[in-house]
């Protein structure tokens, strides 16, 4: 019953790589609806987040209702509908990490990066997002930064992360950062 106004204005063009991955998923699942969620993940992997333009593009490509796709995108914790920094800090603040003192780490992140939950550092490097238990409770407190697990984190390791190579805003010597 959709009114399919084919317009390119609010949509972006999915890249060949994105399309290839989405097409591959289409061979694995019997419905396009399933692939909708896969496509959100794929696009996010390529773009860092899922913009409105990407939402339109996915909905158009898979012929899924946009509102429904939005309902799915906004249901899940790990689909970002707003821009995020280069590296997302998935900060575990669930029970074991809390017992083991994650609050101190959170305070240190706030101090060093000036960000709380849902915020991105001024240099666009980090976005801080709380995440339910990361399943590494024996090494609590833990967090994931980008693709890397950081275990037994303490304020000192936060400092090391922030000052680590590749961080423009917080390295004193700005030479040698990534890109």
């Amino acid at each position, binding site marked *: *019953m*959709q009114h399919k106004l*084919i*317009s*390119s204005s609010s949509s972006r063009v999915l890249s060949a790589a994105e399309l290839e991955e989405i097409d591959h998923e289409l061979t694995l699942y019997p419905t396009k609806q399933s692939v909708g969620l896969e496509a959100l993940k794929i696009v996010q992997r390529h773009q860092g987040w899922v913009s*409105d333009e990407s939402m339109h593009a996915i909905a158009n490509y898979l012929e899924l*209702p946009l*509102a429904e796709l*939005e309902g799915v995108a906004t249901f899940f914790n790990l689909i970002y509908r707003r821009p995020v920094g280069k590296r997302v800090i998935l900060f575990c603040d669930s029970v074991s990490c809390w017992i083991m003192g994650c609050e101190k780490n959170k305070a240190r992140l706030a101090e060093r990066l000036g960000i709380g939950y849902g915020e991105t550092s001024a240099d666009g490097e980090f976005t801080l997002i709380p995440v339910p238990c990361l399943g590494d409770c024996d090494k609590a407190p833990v967090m994931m930064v980008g693709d890397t697990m950081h275990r037994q984190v303490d304020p000192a390791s936060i400092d090391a992360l922030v000052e680590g190579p590749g961080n423009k805003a917080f390295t004193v010597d700005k030479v040698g950062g990534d890109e």
Partner: protein
Amino acid sequence: MAKITVDGLSYEVNPDNNLLQECLSQGLDLPYFCWHPCMGSVGACRQCAVKTYRDAEDKNGTLVMACMTPASDGAIVSIEDEQASAFRAGVIESLMTSHPHDCPVCEEGGECHLQDMTQMSGHNYRRYDKLKVTHRNQDLGPFLNHEMNRCITCYRCVRFYDDYAGGTDLAAQASHHHTYFGRFEDGTLESEFSGNLAEVCPTGVFTDKPFSEHYTRKWDLQVAPSVCTGCAVGCNTTPGERYGSLRRVVNRYNSEINGYFLCDRGRFGAHYVNTDNRLRSAKDAAGMTLSTEEAEEKLAAVCAQGAIGIGSPRASVEANFALRCLVGEDNYYSGESAQNHEALQWLLSCLEDEAFSCPTIKEMEGADAVLVLGEDVTNTAPRVALALRQSVRSEATRLAAKARIPSWQDAAVRELAQEAQSPLALFSTGATRLDDVASTTLNADPASLLAAAKAVDVRLAGGSPDYDALIPEASSGASKGETMQAVESVCAALIAAQEPLIVCGSHAGVELMRVAASIARTLSALKSAPCALALLPAEDNSVGHAMLVRPQNTLAAALTKLSDGAASAVIIIENDLTRRAPSAAVTAALQAAEQVVVVDHLNTATTRAATLALPSTSFNEYESSRVNYEGRAQLSFQVSQYPSGTKPVEHWLGVDGALHSASLIARCSAEAAGFASLPKILPDALTRVAGLKVPRQSHRYSGRTAMNANVAVNEGKQAVDENSVMAFSMEGALLQQDASVLASPWAPRWSSNQSITKFQAEVGGELKQEQKGVHLLTRSVQSAVVEPDSHVVSGATDPATKGELGVHFVQQIFGSDELSAHSPAIRERLCDAYVALSPPQAASLGATTGDRLVISGTTTELSLVVRTQTPDTVAMIYPGTSAAGESINALDLPHRITLTRAPDQEAGAASLGLAALIVGDAVFSHARAAEE
């Protein structure tokens, strides 16, 4: 039947239903939110908790959700159990934590299901003192307000809008206690059934926007049972009036027709009665206002001189009959277009033919294979579209029964069935808004569709093995192979079905209607049972009007009589002839006539041509009857008093008995063929308690002594209505549990529309003392069998001159109907008159969507819409209703046209644009089409 015990009393119940539904059917009060009789159970709200006990020994019991528990034989249930009550109180307390304290300013107040349930569950003190969740609201267009802070997350809106009505632009978003129901972004809700959200939502999230602009509490509305005038389905409605203006229309439950739902044309279209476009006083030829007495004198003079009459499908049975009495049957002419007149003759003969049955809307929902021929029901009889959408779920119900999943387990049934659907085949020129649930769609030029339909018939009849010869080699839509495949699958589906249904209508043309009937006849022979055949006329009283007119008394004949001078005066009732006949013929006739009397409630091109224009009442201002597509006559009561200066057509015409509708109905039944049973639509006044009348005002109607204080401080005498069993008063018989004259249901503890369950013999079933109208026509004859003439293929392959396109008219739900198009909210949904072309055709003109095209040889300009599913040889024209309320006279256009780009691409000042266009296929936007 099963026996269950509820709080110690035993009840006979239907074990196929759930406990909640059965408790409600028994008249018990059990709170609920997420369940709906049409949408089944999902168990989300947890409000309907009850205790069930294993056996008499079980003292503890188990808490269950009544809506998720079958009403199985021997069940021992307690609603009153302390734990169950406490849990229900907890649920309502939870639901209210973030609910605003805005009942006094909320449009739902006083008819709010949430208010009812809050009181019923005993929650009257708010312990919650933390922060509330708040939401941003969306602009959902001209029909509905959005106030998400009031949401209690029962999921009913999306279950209706998406699952039931097939909408796609409203969805649940976010989650946990931030769950949000809205669109992807602000914008008009696309479904043509969106207005039902105002009734489906148990609180004030979705409310009727035109109503809230001029808001009145439910209990302050003066109401009466009415019938929608939006199309030929005849949905039952309840218009509400206050201070002389129509405020809103809500659904009035009818177990066989609309059930719980209306379309948006019906709900929002009636507001035309309040507009400036009403004819409010009598006028003479010069447009000078006349007093009623002067007008009556002039009319009497015309009558004395002798006049012919032209009736109208949008005027009531009584009005048409009164005109016929006045001018005599010989001089009473059809007010229908030639095509519709012919179609109606055929339709009437089919309604009397015992080979067919005419399905109610409810029966359409139960069909297990449907073939729709040519008629775009979403735009011509929208409630039918909603019913056909349900019909495809017959297969799901069947699968669920096989898997022993109760049919009310809504989510489970959908999950099990996945894409499995009963067949729905759509043969239409362009895409329709039911395509998404169709198993077969065939888009081709009209002649090819006709050929394909004939092929279906021949194939079903087991005749001519080379039925494929019927199908033209070259059609501009589907290929021959595709057509053959469609024909095959339709035949297979219809043969396999238990309850097949054939749908066609007068917009599709009489030829296709004949083939539709022929197919139904073949099926009825195959199955030795009458086959359901729904032939849909165009307007609310098309059938009633046609029944009164002699077949040879066509409109063309009347116009000729006038222009020839064979008649010098004409009385036209509630009809704009420029919508019915070519402008030239209308103009010639009206100019030739010495006297043109037009009685109408609207200002139209025809009233402007009148020598005497008389203002009539609109549908809500007098009591009258109409005959729907089934031949079912229904009575619509007067809601408001006549606006000053106006009167019903039949009163103007002053025939004997007209002042009392019952006596006019009696006369009609005696004099007009086919109307013998008409008086049965009248409520039986004798059965009323002590002869009491039924109040139009609620027992809480307020301000009666003060409402006219700005005019006069004394309390005026209540208007007396001798004409009706209803009174303009709050006093009278209280129709508790009697639905014979039920406008607005209410029951103790149930102020919302959910109180309808108290009037139903069983939930979702018939009303107690339901007034269902009467079927006027009885089936006794076999109408002339029209053999599909199997070896001639008409039209399709006529070689068109290069660039010539066959004209095919399309309808839009908002705009094609004359009356509703004047309603302010509907007007915001109108779009320009357009011509839809296929992408290649558009490309050959070098034009894209939004460009202006001219029909060669005329001055008619149209906006171009490039639609993917348009056959290449067809121009699909929507004549439109312009911002000024006028449309292109479709009957002035030739059958074949050529188009060129308009020299001046600026759309007229009154342009509505195409933004409100809603179609079923893809539309190429400007940018995209330009690229290709």
